[in-house]
């Protein structure tokens, strides 16, 4: 593989909330190769969105480096960043909150072009129509408002908006979790097709491992702001190495009445970032935790080619 | 209850003569109606404001050269029981002459070269030159106790809290308390030399808004207040109240700014006079309670016969303007008519004047501002003519007719004095100077008649009228004397006789 399109090193993010410092992300490092789809999974509050937004500098990272196509983003001036923005776009989780209720779909879809000063009003509208066609929506939607569309349709509009600027890289933040199953399948298929058709590079964020499998080449598993495991999809689903990944997979309910059921129910809740456990952050809920887990923060180690995990217990492999 | 009946409450500081919140007679530019209930001057005006009579001075003599005044003092006692002596009088006059005390009388007492206590009951005042206005000035000098104030340095005197906490005077009532911004309460001075007062208490209530004073009067909470003439209607035919009418001693006029070229031509000034239907305004807006003025005066003895009456004649006004070439001088350009009167009545007057002048082609725009703003505009040595071409104002014209001097004498043009119209008329100045230096009372009226004549002819101002002013007292109030004197007096009000019927 040539140089990755996106290369994140030691990314950290702190928030100060009411005087206490919250370390939301610590030492996050990963690459996304050109044309690759990388999944980012983890429970709510684990920092998935924060990573996605830090990478695009929609929030300012507190530490680390983000290189996009060889350019260091974290130190870029805001005007240079603005010029670079069309090349990287974001798709939001909530199809209701991510479309302005007061703009027509046409206005929403041409907004980016207008900001970037692309074309005349007519040309921009034509591109908006083209983008609507790309996501299988009628072109006369340009005169309507977001609330007149169903969740799935809105998510398509969100996708169309990201596509109008013809980006190379897209961060899709839980694009299907707010949708019904039947619609979710439509959108997953759409994203997959677009990604393949346009050769997009994508960071796909989800909390649903079952969805991630359909679309991603590689998967990063996140817990409380730390990477637990990175692996190619096939390897991960075939044989997860980290106890957390295993627990996540086993918790997914299956509709198949005949499938065997051996739930492994994790105890307790995800700890607060204000007061993270020492050592391995997962140890408080880990069924395989040892006293030693509280002492050192486990390194991310390559167990098999391309398959990393951050767990001291090699006996579980 | 009898205690209640023996208490008189009033709005003594409401209206133009009042000065709410001031307790210091040395700093008083008004409010004497109230101050003279517990302080007394050596001399005061009589009830009609016609002549100066003795108050704490039982009699006085003037030397033939008019420079030595000898006062015999009455047998009075301070409220704390100490006797009032000539030393107190000397002390007071010296305080009043000393501007460091914050005295506003200093300039008016300029002519006084010394004040000496010849004995306990005799005060001698010597003048550097004869002064016709000395007695008028002395009516405002309220006697102050030396034994209470001599310890205080002159420049600290005004800041001392004595004035509002424990003042003592010689008047029929004694200060008993001041409730901040609410009222001042006095109690009867049973030792008063003029006899024990009929009332036990007298309360001066403060009103920030004249309408509120009227409400209190109608609600029976107070028994007296000043009332604007256009608010009289409710009292006129009401037998529960007695309306007291008095001369305001203030002449209202339209002051032409003589620095502005538009008034140069006397025909323009005459046109203004002919254009305004003063009789109609007096009849309808003042309800007849004013007298047209054709110079600064209306008092018979100072108004000569046969002067021009400037009867309403818009045709003539138009004619005069045409002759003067008003179209070239100013034409339709708006002329600001500045005033510090902000009452509803004044607003109506201004509206009427504006409409009447518009009829003949003079386009004025009334502008009412607060007093400080007004003063800062008109007293400015180099005023902005555009802001200030004409004023609607008033000036005290009595009881001493010399009062108008400062508003008309060329020597009083700001910053030297308040000749805000910048009147530069040598004839008028010399007429005024002559009248002022005339110490012979008999000849004085003739001198002032001359002043009136000049004013009537030359029109340094457009004189309008002298309005009446009113107070309304409850019909239960007996032997109550009040008159709307400028600055509130002082005059012989005899508060010790005031009484309330059951």
């Amino acid at each position, binding site marked *: 593989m040539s140089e990755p399109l996106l290369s994140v090193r030691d990314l950290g993010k702190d928030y100060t909330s009411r005087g206490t410092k919250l370390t939301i992300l610590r030492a996050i490092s990963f690459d996304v190769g050109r044309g690759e789809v990388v999944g980012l999974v983890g429970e709510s509050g684990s920092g998935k969105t924060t990573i996605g*937004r830090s990478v*695009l500098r*929609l929030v300012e990272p507190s530490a680390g480096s983000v290189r996009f196509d060889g350019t260091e983003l974290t130190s870029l001036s805001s005007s240079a*960043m*603005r*010029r670079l*923005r*069309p090349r990287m776009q*974001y798709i*939001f*989780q909530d199809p209701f*909150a*991510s*479309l*302005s*209720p*007061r703009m*027509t779909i046409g206005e*929403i879809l041409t*907004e*980016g072009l207008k*900001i*970037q000063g692309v074309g005349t009003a007519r040309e921009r509208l034509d591109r908006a129509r083209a983008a609507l066609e790309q996501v299988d929506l*009628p072109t*006369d*939607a340009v*005169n309507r*408002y977001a*609330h*007149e*569309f169903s*969740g799935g*349709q809105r998510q398509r509009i969100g996708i169309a*908006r990201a596509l109008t600027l013809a980006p190379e890289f897209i961060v899709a933040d839980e694009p299907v979790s707010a949708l019904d199953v039947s619609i979710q399948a439509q959108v997953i298929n759409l994203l997959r097709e677009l990604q393949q058709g346009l050769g997009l590079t994508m960071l796909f964020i989800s909390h649903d491992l079952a969805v991630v499998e359909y679309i991603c080449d590689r998967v990063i598993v996140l817990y409380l702001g730390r990477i637990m495991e990175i692996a190619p999809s096939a390897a991960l689903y075939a044989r997860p190495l980290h106890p957390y990944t295993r627990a996540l997979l086993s918790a997914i309910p299956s509709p198949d009445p005949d499938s065997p059921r051996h739930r492994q129910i994790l105890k307790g809740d995800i700890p607060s970032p204000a007061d993270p456990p020492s050592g391995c952050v997962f140890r408080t809920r880990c069924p395989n935790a040892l006293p030693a887990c509280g002492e050192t923060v486990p390194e991310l180690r390559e167990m098999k080619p391309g398959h990393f995990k951050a767990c001291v217990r090699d006996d579980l492999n | 209850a009898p205690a209640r009946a023996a208490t008189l409450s009033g709005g003594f500081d409401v209206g133009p003569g009042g000065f709410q919140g001031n307790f210091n007679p040395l700093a008083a530019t008004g409010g004497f109606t109230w101050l003279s209930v517990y302080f007394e001057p050596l001399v005061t005006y009589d009830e009609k404001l016609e002549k100066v009579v003795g108050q704490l001075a039982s009699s006085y003599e003037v030397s033939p050269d008019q420079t030595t005044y000898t006062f015999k003092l009455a047998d009075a006692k301070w409220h704390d029981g100490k006797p009032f002596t000539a030393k107190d009088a000397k002390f007071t006059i010296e305080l009043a002459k000393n501007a460091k005390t914050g005295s506003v009388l200093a300039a008016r007492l300029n002519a006084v070269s010394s004040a000496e206590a010849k004995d306990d009951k005799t005060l001698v005042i010597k003048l550097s030159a004869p002064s016709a206005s000395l007695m008028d000035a002395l009516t405002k000098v309220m006697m102050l106790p030396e034994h209470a104030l001599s310890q205080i340095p002159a420049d600290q005197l005004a800041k001392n809290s004595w004035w509002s906490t424990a003042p003592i005077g010689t008047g029929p009532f004694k200060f008993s308390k001041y409730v901040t911004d609410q009222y001042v309460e006095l109690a009867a001075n049973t030792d008063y030399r003029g006899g024990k007062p009929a009332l036990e208490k007298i309360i001066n209530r403060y009103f920030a808004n004249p*309408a509120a004073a009227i409400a209190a009067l109608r609600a029976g909470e107070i028994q007296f207040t000043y009332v604007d003439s*256009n*608010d*009289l*209607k*409710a009292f006129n035919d009401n037998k529960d109240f007695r309306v007291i009418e008095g001369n305001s001693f203030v002449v209202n006029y339209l002051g032409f700014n003589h620095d502005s070229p538009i008034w140069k031509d006397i025909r323009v000034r005459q046109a203004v006079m002919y254009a305004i239907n003063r009789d*109609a*305004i007096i*009849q*309808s*807006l003042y309800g007849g309670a004013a007298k047209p003025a054709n110079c600064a005066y209306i008092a018979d003895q100072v108004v000569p016969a046969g002067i021009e009456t400037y009867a309403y004649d818009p045709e003539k006004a138009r004619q005069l303007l045409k002759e003067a070439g008003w179209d070239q001088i100013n034409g339709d350009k708006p002329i600001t008519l500045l005033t510090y009167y902000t009452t*509803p*009545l004044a*607003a109506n007057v*201004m*509206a*009427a004047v*504006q*409409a*009447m002048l518009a009829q003949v082609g003079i386009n004025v*725009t*009334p*502008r*009412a501002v*607060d007093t400080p*703003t007004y003063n800062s505009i008109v007293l400015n040595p180099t005023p902005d003519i555009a802001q200030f071409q004409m004023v609607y104002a008033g000036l005290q014209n009595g009881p001493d007719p010399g009062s108008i001097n400062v508003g008309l004498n060329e020597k009083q043009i700001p910053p030297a004095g308040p000749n805000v119209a910048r009147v530069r008329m040598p004839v008028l100045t010399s007429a005024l100077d002559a009248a002022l230096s005339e110490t012979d009372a008999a000849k004085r009226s003739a001198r002032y008649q001359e002043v009136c004549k000049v004013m009537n002819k030359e029109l340094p101002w457009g004189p309008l009228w002298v309005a009446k002013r009113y107070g309304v007292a409850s019909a239960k109030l007996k032997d109550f004397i009040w008159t709307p004197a400028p600055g509130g007096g002082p005059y012989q009000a005899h508060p010790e006789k005031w009484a309330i019927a059951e």
Partner: protein
Amino acid sequence: MLARSPARSPGPIVRSLHRFLLNRTALLGLCMIALMIVAILSYPLWWSFKPNDIDLLAMNAQPGPTHWFGTDGVGRDILARVLDGGRISLLVALTSTVISAIIGFLIGAVSALAGRWADAVTMRFVDLVMTLPPVIFLLVLASIAGTGIWPTVFVISLLSWPLLARMVRARLLELRERDFVMAARGMGAGLPHLLLRHGLPNSIDILVVFATLQIANAILLEAGLSFLGLGIAPPAASWGNMLNAARSTAVLEQYPWQWLFPGGFLVLAVLAINFIGDGLRDAFDPRAELN
């Protein structure tokens, strides 16, 4: 979900209009204001009295067949003055409301969207302006600006924006975190774009409430200004300075028509603008079609 059949749908402006017309009280308000404006503009054609003509013989006349609304203290016709004054009052109120809305919105929006420092500085400034005693502020401003309609508008505008700035700021601080604003930033949007394309439409309801309150406030402030010799120069009428006549107890008690009519018109105008404001808010909110 309201997924309509993909028939051609009309443009956003037409639909805003449609939403506005759906609102019955807004239409009522519009009618009231329209009637008022027509009366104000056309009264010289059908009403024989002029607003500034005095008639000392007919002063303080009661409402009757000749003077429908009676006359004032110098015999001017109240109806003519109310209508003439409406012209000035509405002009002053509307323009100053628009100007102060613009100032307040811009300051609030910049404070919310332009970063921490801008926020701290502008908010302290707003605090300062809000603690300044209005009388002093008025005196200074007015002595600089002078009298007449435009200075009055200027003074009133400068006095009224701080509260709005605060409300807009609060709203936009919240908006700033919304996904669709984030999306705009992700496409490279700068401050002007965020301000106009997102800040403004989403502050409409605040602006509408502000405007309806401010209209009344401006008319009353104008009345207050004339106490200080500022505001509208007499003899020109305005509702505010007509109300001032009620300071005289005689007018207050005996000639109530002199203040009741201008007061009534003021209330009607504010009420109508209130109704229209509600309608506009709905018209600008595409979701209002739902129910």
